[in-house]
């Protein structure tokens, strides 16, 4: 089975994020970049499916700058077979990204697209859903378990207040949640092998999709520093404080 896994480059969650002086983005000096953790889970799941089936192909795709090759190479080192970098030097909206990936998917014809439910930088939580809509494929979001049976797929989804199981025919789009699996480390021989695996670059303009930005970031701000809380002696005091000071009741 051919599985397409979209990969985003994001700041390492352990990095301290600072807003750039012009407020238009984050300061990128001294930021370490990693694969979006949810996409890493998607790669792991794709590799497990391939290993279980004993055959297939795991193809990674990223839509971004030259530097995103690093994250694609890491995915190849984990075990993916090849990677596609759709080169776009300008940052794109989630809608444009979804259009690009859907377009590439039309050519690649994977049976399954597994993608992180969201990227930990802007937390949009849209791309997977939009790809499915554009391709007219079924979708299952927030997967904590994926089971394949011939050309059908069943997914346990994490929803508010419990789990929902959905079943649908392939091809389809599945977005990953945190508990789906624990991603492997890239092994050192895997890293060496990855250097020779194909990584093709396509110019984003060559795909003929509409990339017009629809979103504009006006300003980014660091959240106000949180004040320390206060301990109150009784429920009466609490109610009074909520009423008189916080003015919420």
């Amino acid at each position, binding site marked *: 089975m051919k599985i397409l896994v979209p990969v985003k480059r994001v700041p390492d969650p352990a990095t301290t994020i600072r807003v750039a002086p012009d407020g238009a983005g984050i300061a990128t000096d001294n930021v370490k970049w990693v694969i979006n953790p949810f996409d890493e889970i998607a790669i792991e799941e794709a590799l497990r499916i391939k290993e279980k089936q004993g055959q297939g192909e795991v193809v990674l795709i990223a839509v971004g700058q030259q530097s995103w090759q690093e994250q694609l190479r890491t995915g190849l080192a984990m075990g993916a077979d090849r990677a596609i970098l759709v080169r776009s030097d300008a940052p794109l909206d989630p809608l444009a990204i979804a259009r690009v990936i859907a377009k590439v998917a039309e050519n690649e014809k994977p049976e399954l697209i597994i993608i992180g439910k969201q990227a930990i930088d802007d937390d949009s939580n849209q791309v997977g859903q939009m790809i499915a809509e554009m391709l007219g494929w079924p979708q299952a979001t927030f997967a904590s378990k994926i089971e394949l049976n011939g050309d059908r797929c069943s997914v346990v989804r994490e929803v508010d207040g419990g789990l929902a199981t959905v079943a649908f025919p392939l091809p389809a789009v599945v977005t990953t949640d945190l508990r789906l699996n624990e991603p492997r480390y*890239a092994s050192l021989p895997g890293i060496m092998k990855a250097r020779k695996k194909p990584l093709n670059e396509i110019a984003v303009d060559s795909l003929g999709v509409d990339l017009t930005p629809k979103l504009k970031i006006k300003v980014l701000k660091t959240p106000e520093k949180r004040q320390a809380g206060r301990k109150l002696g009784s429920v009466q005091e609490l109610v009074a404080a909520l009423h008189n000071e916080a003015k919420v009741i």
Partner: protein
Amino acid sequence: MIGSSRDVDFFNLDELLRPEEKMARDAVRAFVSREVLPQIEQHFAHETFDRGLVAQMADLGIFGANLHGYGCAGMNNIAYGLIMQELEAADSGLRSFASVQSALAMYAIYSSGSEEQKQRYLPEMARGKLIGCFGLTEPDHGSDPGGMETRARRDGRGWVLNGVKRWITNGSIADLAIVWAKVEEGVTGFIVERGTPGFATSDIHGKFSMRASITSELVFEDVRVDEAHHLPNARGLRAPLSCLTQARYGIAWGAIGAARTCYLCALDYVKSRKQFSRPLAGYQMVQRKLVNMLTEITKAQMICLRLGQLKDAGTMRPEQVSFAKRNNVNAALKIARTARDMLGANGIVNEYPIIRHMLNLETVNTYEGTFDVQTLILGRDITGENAFD
């Protein structure tokens, strides 16, 4: 999650690393934070080595990672150094295990072994199926290995070994020991497999340092080995010394990891610990300590990066490795001691990693050539005068 951990990189040296070097570092860093850090204090407390880690390190490809062929990963020396750095950021004992397996035992076979020996042992050692140790030091000969008393004499087509080796990392868990002994022509090496009659091991207890690593004594009483267990290209003391150069190289990198852990821990602590109404980090003397630590870590990183470039280019001199080992381990030890002080009473408990690193680094300062022995190597190099004897 891969690559997720804090770093100390004041000069953005990351930019100078190749993608595969960063990937190797990040993979080992992730492994260590997931598999090692949650258990390490327990192993240190109980003087045990976590043998379950051997297979995991082998799966990652850590053993002999900078050797080529024979099932080894074939990475460059900067990647190898970064791997050692990440292992030692967790515990010097873990890095010791990997160093002894890779740079001492595997490298001895790789550099002085016959083709049959390489084929027979190296792939299994890379896979962690065979554990090796390296017996050079003796009870009465540490800094002067040339004075060793272990002897091998020819007996028909084989050899008979007699002697004692002490302070041998992994000794009692090793499947094979690389043993250095004197023969008529000088020093040479043997591969002695566990279970060979006359070969016994016992562990050294009561250590205050390297408690999560096994240190043993090896005793050889009329141990017979055939020529297939003799390292044919090990001629003279140069053979074991060339292994020490490999191991010292990894130690120079490893020390940065231990220093980084202590520095980051102290930095966090003084930012949140308040005395006299202000965070400790707000006092000038505390800031000076932090700045000195950062400076020493950064210098050590730069030394290692250059050393790695030279090693990859094939132009590295052993004296340069001595320089790096001497400087970096000494800096790490001082950083650990300062960090210990900065945590006050909390600096002496295992709730924080500092005291463990501090104690471990006492060994790192001593083994593979003490600080002063490296000084003599460098002194000889710059003056042309040999102060060893």
